[in-house]
């Protein structure tokens, strides 16, 4: 624990020192290098702590009668490991990427502060310090979102982020207030006692709103695709890959740890929201042609997958099915780890593309595999992992989630028995659509021919960025072929939260994982990997031997492909069109119409696509309209005379006295 504290303090000192040295030429490598070292130490410390007995500590900070409570158990250690792994790799990436930063003075102070804030949230064990750390994390990341504040889109993103973050914190504040009760203490230890059913339900809803708005549950996800891409790419990776996981941690801490035994319908609520989040996230990602926004929408999808696991764990736990709960919970935690790894990798890849070409719009990229072959390959690994392709890590956690879904027929309540397979179907749909989406993202960005001059002249990214991406890709592969080690590593956290654990996987032959029983299902990532590697090598050799080297004659008119302009290629929107046709009319109220010029008119035909962002239009736009309408009305209150203000005070006083007179 002492190591964690010194690490956090060191990060804060780094953050304070940053403005002083920001003018130096080596400021950015210094800061990021120091952050890398600190995060790496914190990562090793946390990773080794999983499974050790919990440690407590009270420091005389914060409120005088409360102090600052800290608690370091296996769950916290797991999330700290995820956080600091991401932090370390992002720092490594930023040593190279930070050179392209136009205004390092706006990024450098906030980056270590953001890392420190995320570490603090996980360690705190009382409501006051938790909310303080939570807000610190939100505000420091806000500073990073608006670091390029000349761009009006970024300012808007920052504004929406700030509003959503305050809303979330307000909900968490109320939740903790209810947890503590009227005379309760604000330390987490004192909140463990059982809570009244309606009160617990209210707390659950508040935490769903509070943590869900940070994690990006539908319909609270609107700020993610705005704010995450607005930040510099290494920060996007942290916000998307790590900060959303901190929100998942907050949810787990309150609902699984503090709230006591769950009701069965909590699972229904959670699964419904999670299924909607998963499908909507991936569909919006498919419609998106901005590389970083696409990735942010995929974060929404993956948060949905994590919450499907958590919802199943709650449902099983409410029915005393400890083993199944442990399986679902392990799947969720494993997906937390996996998503943080491959989402960081993908954001790094998009950051490399962005710094090489200055473009985020896929329609202006293309052919980058020739200019940036390593980045392309590493991005491909990340894309395969997020599309849940074996033998990479994304497959393992989604497969485990499916195994948990398959256990749901044993649940006694019909509501759960209906919603769990629905969530499973949503998960399957989302996995398929995610694969389609990344075929689009990779294909349009890296394959084909360059669509613009800048894409044509791109250079491979620097070696720090590449080494960060290589490290993440290696972790993706390792977690994919040795999942048993990860599952065993997570199991102490599972024991803490759902009082059960999956069977020990470590000693099974050939690193097979058997989540339930040998007769039901098993998966061996190592064998799959070897098979894929061998068959791919054989196929490549065969093609090379028998096809590539042969003399080929092609027709002169080759469907237009070898000649003319890059505009003849498949575009991102044309790739997404079939899916837009199938789902778009319902989910986005999409409409297409083709404007053909009149016969004899030589102007170009036009295809117009109209799409609606339903959550925004149905919830946020009316809300914003209502707020501005009310403030227009209340504006008149700014121009009253003193006597009229006094009348308001007087009437309020009389009203309150009347309330006392009537009620007491």
């Amino acid at each position, binding site marked *: 624990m002492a190591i964690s504290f010194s690490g956090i303090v060191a990060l804060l000192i780094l953050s304070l020192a940053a403005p002083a040295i920001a003018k130096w030429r080596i400021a950015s490598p210094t800061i990021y290098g120091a952050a890398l070292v600190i995060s790496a130490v914190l990562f090793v410390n946390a990773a080794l702590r999983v499974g050790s007995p919990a440690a407590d500590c009270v420091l005389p900070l914060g409120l005088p009668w409360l102090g600052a409570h800290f608690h370091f158990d296996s769950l916290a250690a797991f999330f700290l490991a995820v956080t600091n792994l991401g932090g370390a790799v992002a720092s490594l990436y930023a040593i190279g990427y930070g050179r392209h930063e136009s205004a390092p003075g706006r990024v450098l102070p906030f980056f270590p502060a953001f890392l420190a804030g995320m570490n603090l949230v996980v360690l705190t064990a009382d409501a006051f310090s938790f909310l303080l750390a939570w807000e610190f994390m939100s505000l420091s990341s806000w500073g990073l979102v608006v670091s390029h504040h000349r761009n009006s889109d970024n300012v808007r993103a920052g504004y929406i982020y700030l509003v959503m973050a305050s809303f979330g914190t307000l909900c968490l504040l109320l939740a903790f207030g209810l947890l503590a009760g009227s005379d309760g203490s604000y330390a987490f230890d004192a909140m463990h006692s059982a809570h009244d059913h309606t009160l617990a339900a209210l707390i659950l809803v508040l935490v769903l709103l509070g943590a869900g708005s940070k994690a990006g549950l539908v319909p609270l996800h609107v700020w993610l695709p705005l704010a995450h891409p607005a930040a510099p790419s290494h920060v996007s990776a942290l916000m998307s890959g790590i900060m959303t996981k901190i929100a998942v941690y907050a949810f787990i801490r309150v609902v699984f740890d503090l709230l006591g035994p769950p009701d069965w319908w909590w699972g229904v609520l959670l699964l419904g929201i999670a299924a909607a989040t998963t499908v909507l996230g991936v569909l919006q990602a498919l419609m998106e042609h901005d590389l970083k926004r696409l990735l942010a929408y995929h974060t929404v999808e993956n948060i949905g997958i994590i919450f499907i696991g958590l919802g199943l764990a709650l449902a099983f736990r409410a029915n005393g099915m400890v083993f199944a709960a442990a399986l679902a919970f392990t799947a969720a935690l494993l997906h937390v780890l996996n998503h943080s790894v491959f989402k960081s990798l993908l954001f790094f890849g998009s950051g490399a593309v962005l710094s090489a070409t200055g473009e985020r719009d896929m329609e202006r990229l293309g052919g980058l595999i020739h200019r940036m072959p390593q980045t392309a390959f590493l991005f491909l690994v990340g894309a395969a992992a997020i599309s849940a392709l074996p033998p990479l890590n994304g497959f393992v956690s989604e497969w485990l989630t499916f195994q948990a879904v398959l256990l749901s027929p044993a649940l006694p309540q019909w509501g759960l028995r209906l919603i769990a397979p629905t969530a499973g179907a949503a998960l399957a749909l989302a996995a398929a659509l995610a694969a389609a989406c990344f075929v689009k993202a990779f294909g349009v960005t890296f394959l084909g021919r360059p669509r613009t001059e800048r894409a044509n002249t791109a250079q491979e990214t620097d070696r720090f960025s590449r080494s960060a991406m290589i490290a993440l890709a290696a972790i993706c592969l390792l977690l994919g072929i040795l999942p048993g080690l990860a599952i065993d590593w997570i199991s102490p956290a599972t024991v803490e939260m759902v009082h059960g654990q999956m069977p020990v996987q470590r000693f099974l032959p050939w690193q097979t994982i058997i989540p339930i029983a040998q007769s039901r299902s098993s998966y061996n990532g190592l064998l799959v990997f070897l098979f894929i590697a061998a068959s791919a090598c054989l196929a490549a050799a065969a093609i090379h031997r028998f096809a590539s080297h042969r003399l080929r004659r092609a027709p002169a008119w080759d469907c237009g492909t070898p000649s003319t302009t890059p505009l003849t290629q498949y575009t991102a929107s044309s790739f997404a069109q079939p899916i837009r046709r199938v789902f778009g009319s319902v989910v986005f109220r999409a409409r297409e119409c083709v404007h053909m010029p009149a016969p004899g008119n030589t102007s170009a035909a036009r295809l117009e696509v109209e799409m609606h962002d339903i959550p925004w239009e149905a919830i946020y736009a009316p809300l914003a309209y209502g707020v501005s309408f009310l403030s227009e009305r209340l504006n008149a209150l700014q*121009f009253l005379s003193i006597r009229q203000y006094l009348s308001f005070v007087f009437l309020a006083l009389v009203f309150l006295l009347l309330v006392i007179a009537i009620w007491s």
Partner: protein
Amino acid sequence: MHSLAFDIAHLLAGGLVLVSFMMLYQDRMYALINVFALHAVLLAVSVAWQALVQDAPHLYITALIALVFKATIIPAALRRIVERLDIHREIETVVGTGLTMLAGMALVALSMVVMLRVTAAADPLAREDLAFALSIVLLGLLMMVSRRNAVSQVIGFMSLENGLVLAATGAKGMPLVVEISVAFSVLIAFIVIGIFLFRIRERFDSVDIRALDRVRRERL
């Protein structure tokens, strides 16, 4: 002795409420100032009586302040202001006198109900005193709300403050009573000086409301 002490305190506090009512229906500036001076004198007597009963000599200071400052200096200053500003003719009330009196009675009833119910466990002496003090505060507020003139609003504020001092002295062992009364007196002095020196009557929509309207039209 105790019963007599209680009765006299009760009488004085009741007298203060009565004088508050008298202030409500005054429609001449000078008369209003005179009634306020009477209010302050009664307050001084009441506080002095509390000092005697509670054996708390520091309250004599408060009584002295009330007598010298509120009953003498401020009324004199206000009279000069009224002369200077030439507003001694009449007081523009917003609502009619009868309606104001009725509202005042309702407020006294309300404060009785609230106070007697909330402080059921308290010392009876303090209880009655608090109920009267709250009535005086509310009547002072009512006065501020129902007048347009800056000077009468200041008088309303001062009678409100008298109610606060009464409440503070009535409760036995209340800390910082003297300090509070001094602070309030300084505050009032500043307001009075403000009116006198800077003629801020426009801020109190006293003379020329059209000026305010003009500002508002510019803003909208």
